[in-house]
């Protein structure tokens, strides 16, 4: 106990990192499940269905498969770099999420340590960009060290693409920084408080300028940064087999896979914080009934699961879905307790907004074909960068001349 009171920051950080890691790993696993389900339904299929009710145990089966598969490495690789690359990719993808505030800093434990963010440095936005800008090494080094044609092409493509789109990505958020006047996430979110049209994407308040163009540039550049369709040139399977991770198998491949999904979550978190008010509620604070939304949502989900259990499921699947139903009802009832409801509201809105953006990501993948490489480059440099620069200039002029201020 004495140790805890002497080192509150250390102890609180370790607890928060452990909890975040467990939650994040679960989220990554079920993001793959969500993606497969949504894509399947877009293409009129069922998606994973047999491992667990509605394929709910599929991520677990996939993870075990990756763990126990033989780790085959080509004998002619650069051993050190080949092994290091997936670790770099995965570690950096996870580190960036430590800077994200999932809820208001006012909720605290252990002598005033904020519960919902692991690290609150003064310049959190720059720090996230610093960490994600290193992410390209994972892909580039994997491509180089495999000592093989296709991975090298994938690695080269990926470094060129990520350098190009990083410029546009950074430029598109400078507008938000100008409006907010700070680089700190909590202050950026605090500046958007009030009704939902105060969010930076709408920006209709004193001195603000709508960042809708900035958001569109950000979203496009972010999809390219995370190597997702329609910008997944580094792993275009019709041209490059599997791109930079062709020579990787077993858990090393899984690490690249998880890094990609963790990066998706990071850029969605950033979009939420910068443009959609982070953990702020879209409703005015006076609507106190919104505190019961998380609980009510979970109970509704439980009711649907119960209906499904009784009408659709047979055998083992019925028992599994019954457990899910009970979990939903239990969690929902806990969230309905007034003490819990007040705390859970910030993270609830944050996660809801992230889920909407992630759904959009998956929707894109189910809808759009892949760009050609020259189209990708000319789009990034000749359209995206000038538009985000123009957005920056207009926002800067708007703020400098005070056009948004009335009277």
């Amino acid at each position, binding site marked *: 106990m004495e140790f805890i009171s002497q080192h509150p920051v250390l102890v609180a950080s370790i607890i928060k990192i452990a909890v975040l890691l467990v939650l994040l790993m679960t989220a990554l696993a079920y993001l793959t499940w969500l993606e497969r389900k949504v894509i399947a339904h877009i293409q009129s299929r069922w998606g994973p269905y047999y491992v667990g009710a509605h394929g709910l145990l599929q991520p677990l089966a996939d993870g075990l498969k990756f763990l126990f598969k033989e780790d085959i490495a080509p004998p002619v690789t*650069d051993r050190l770099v080949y092994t290091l690359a997936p670790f770099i990719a995965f570690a950096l993808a996870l580190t960036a999420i430590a800077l994200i505030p999932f809820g208001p800093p006012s909720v605290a434990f252990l002598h005033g340590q904020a519960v919902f963010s692991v690290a609150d440095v003064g*310049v959190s936005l720059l*720090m996230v960009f*610093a960490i994600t*800008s*290193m992410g390209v090494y994972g892909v580039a080094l994997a491509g180089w060290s495999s000592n093989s044609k296709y991975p*090298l092409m994938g690695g*080269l493509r990926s470094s060129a693409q*990520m*350098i190009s789109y990083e410029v546009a990505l950074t430029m598109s958020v400078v507008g938000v920084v100008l409006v907010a006047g700070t680089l700190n996430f909590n202050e950026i979110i605090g500046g958007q408080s009030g009704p939902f049209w105060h969010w930076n994407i709408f920006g209709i308040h004193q001195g603000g300028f709508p960042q809708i163009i900035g958001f569109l540039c950000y979203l496009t550049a972010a999809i390219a940064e995370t190597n997702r369709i329609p910008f997944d040139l580094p792993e275009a399977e019709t041209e490059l087999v599997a791109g930079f991770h062709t020579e990787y198998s077993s858990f090393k491949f899984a690490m690249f896979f998880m890094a990609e999904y963790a990066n998706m979550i990071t850029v969605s978190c950033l979009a939420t914080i910068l443009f959609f008010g982070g953990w702020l509620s879209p409703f005015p604070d006076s609507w106190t009934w919104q505190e019961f939304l998380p609980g009510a949502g979970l109970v509704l989900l439980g009711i649907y699961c119960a209906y499904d259990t009784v009408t659709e499921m047979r055998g083992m699947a019925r028992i599994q879905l019954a457990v899910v139903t009970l979990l939903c009802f239990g969690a929902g009832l806990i969230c309905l307790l007034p003490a819990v409801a007040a705390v859970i509201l910030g993270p609830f809105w944050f996660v809801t907004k992230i889920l909407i953006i992630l759904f959009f990501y998956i929707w894109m993948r189910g809808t759009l074909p892949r760009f050609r490489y020259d189209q990708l480059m000319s789009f990034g440099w000749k359209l995206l960068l000038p538009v985000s620069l123009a957005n920056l200039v207009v926002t800067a002029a708007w703020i400098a001349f005070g056009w948004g201020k009335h009277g």
Partner: protein
Amino acid sequence: MSVPFLLFFVCGVLAVTGAILLIWAKEPIHSALSLILVMVSLAVLYLLLGAPFIAAIQIIVYAGAIMVLFVFVIMLLNAGAEEHTDFSRLAKYVGLPLGVILIFWAAYWLLRSPAGGGGVTGGLIAGPDSTQKLSKQLFQQFLFPFEATSILILIAILGALVLARKQE
């Protein structure tokens, strides 16, 4: 032993190790990786000094942009292992002692400085509102040198472009 001290020690050792490996490594990619290690360790040292802005910029500019280009070019050229020459006699008998003397001389003067070696840059880059302070200095007091440097860099970029273009 406090946590910051431990971190300082670890990152200092990592930075020096990276710098030595940078020269030692035969493979160009290994050299580039060692240089990245040096830069990231330095960034952590900046963080420990209470200058998060400089730390972030250090990683974004050096590790995230310049070194990515280095790695990119090495990959593009697929450069093989370097050939190391032996120490030249001049480097061995004059260079090494001079280097050692330089290190101790710099350490001596840093320790003698009024802030006791810790705060060379004073309150300019450290502290929670360091970003504001730094930008005020950069865009008010040092505006002319700042803009002049920017134009210099622009000219350098244009020069590189002209040189790289094929003659018609």
